[in-house]
């Protein structure tokens, strides 16, 4: 395995990280939006969201990706591997995020909300200043967990030709007839990223439980 090969895998890492970030950044607010729709119990829409989230959480990412990649062109929407990948990642992660946000919303202490109402705060202000900061805090561990899970499913993008870490490693292995070394490099790239996220999650949880104990 040459230095050039390692470089190729590193380029794949850039793709992995970039696509993951895009997926996370878009998926977070969409997940929040879906959770709010269910929490506010908007008629009909809430039910649709519930079914959508349930189906998406049950769907393997590879199946979803193949569905989008092959079916969308059929109904006239052009997709390339990258856009299909981003769409699949966003749909997948937003469904999981929705459940994390929803848990925080459902467990939100009702009396705080009522206190805000009773001092005359209107809905937008109530949400922005009272509800949002607290559900962000509560949801953080679950959301970070979901981020680490997202990184771990990005190899599936190789299926539609996106050259991420895994596909780069597979390609080099096929060329050199030595599949193991590039795979090990791939692990050496994935593991730190996931490890950082998992450690971050544990750190957040620890800090929160200390803050709660002190309160």
């Amino acid at each position, binding site marked *: 395995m040459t230095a050039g090969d390692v470089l190729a895998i590193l380029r794949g890492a850039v793709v992995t990280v970039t696509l993951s970030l895009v997926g996370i950044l878009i998926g977070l607010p969409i997940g929040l939006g879906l959770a709010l729709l269910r929490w506010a119990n908007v008629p009909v829409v809430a039910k649709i969201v519930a079914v959508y989230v349930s189906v998406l959480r049950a769907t393997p990412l*590879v199946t979803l990706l*193949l569905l989008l990649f092959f079916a969308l062109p059929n109904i006239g929407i052009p997709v390339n591997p990258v856009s299909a990948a981003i769409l699949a990642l966003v749909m997948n992660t937003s469904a999981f995020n929705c459940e994390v946000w929803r848990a925080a919303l459902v467990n939100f202490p009702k009396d705080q909300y009522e206190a805000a109402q009773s001092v005359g705060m209107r809905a937008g202000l109530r949400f922005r200043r009272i509800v949002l900061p607290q559900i962000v805090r509560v949801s953080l561990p679950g959301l970070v967990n979901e981020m680490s899970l997202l990184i771990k499913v*990005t190899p599936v993008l190789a299926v539609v030709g996106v050259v991420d870490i*895994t596909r780069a490693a*597979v390609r080099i292995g096929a060329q050199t007839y030595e599949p*193991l070394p590039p*795979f090990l490099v791939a692990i050496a790239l994935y593991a730190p990223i996931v490890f950082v996220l*998992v450690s971050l999650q544990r750190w957040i949880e620890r800090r929160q439980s200390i803050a709660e104990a002190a309160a």
Partner: protein
Amino acid sequence: MIHDFGIVWDERSLLLSGLANTTILSVLSAAAALLLGFVVTPALMSKRRPVAWAARGFVDGMRCVPFLLFAYIIYYGLPSLGVRLDNWTSGLLALTIYNAAYMAEILRGAWAAQPREPIEAGTAFGFSEVRLFRRLILLPLLLAAGPVIGNQMIQIIKDSAFLTIIALPELTHAASSIQSRHYVPFAAFITAVFLYWGLCLVIEVGVSSIGRVADARR
């Protein structure tokens, strides 16, 4: 569109055998992973440092590696070490070992949350190790861990779809095959999606009933 679904219906035996393979693969590896978990968890909590250290390394390692990569390593990487496995064995092995780490962590968490006194009462009444575990520890532990194990099973079903990449004839592979031969991507994959959804609903029903059994005894 209806025509497309008609084609899928014609190919239903392929789809159903894919579904069967997904189910068999998932059930077998889940059971094996759980059994393996029962071996790894005591190792995690062992007082002998090398043992605990090795177990912790295994569990954390599996949780930092993407499953697809792990499956690739087993299928494509092992041959260069002299071990050549077919895609079924590779798939089963990859799913089992990977999820054993998660099961071990689940069991460890459930064990830590178990009240100590009833187990101590068992010791005081003369129950010794194996009997103590079999009669007084195992069932309450499984009842408590039921929902989390159920979630892990759903994860296993979804991970099994990755194995389409090593040409294992599971559900996604079947749908892919139908779509590439008949050009009915939406119908084929949507059907697969709803079959996966159905599998997960079955698991969730199972978990609910375990939850009810557990609640009566809580």
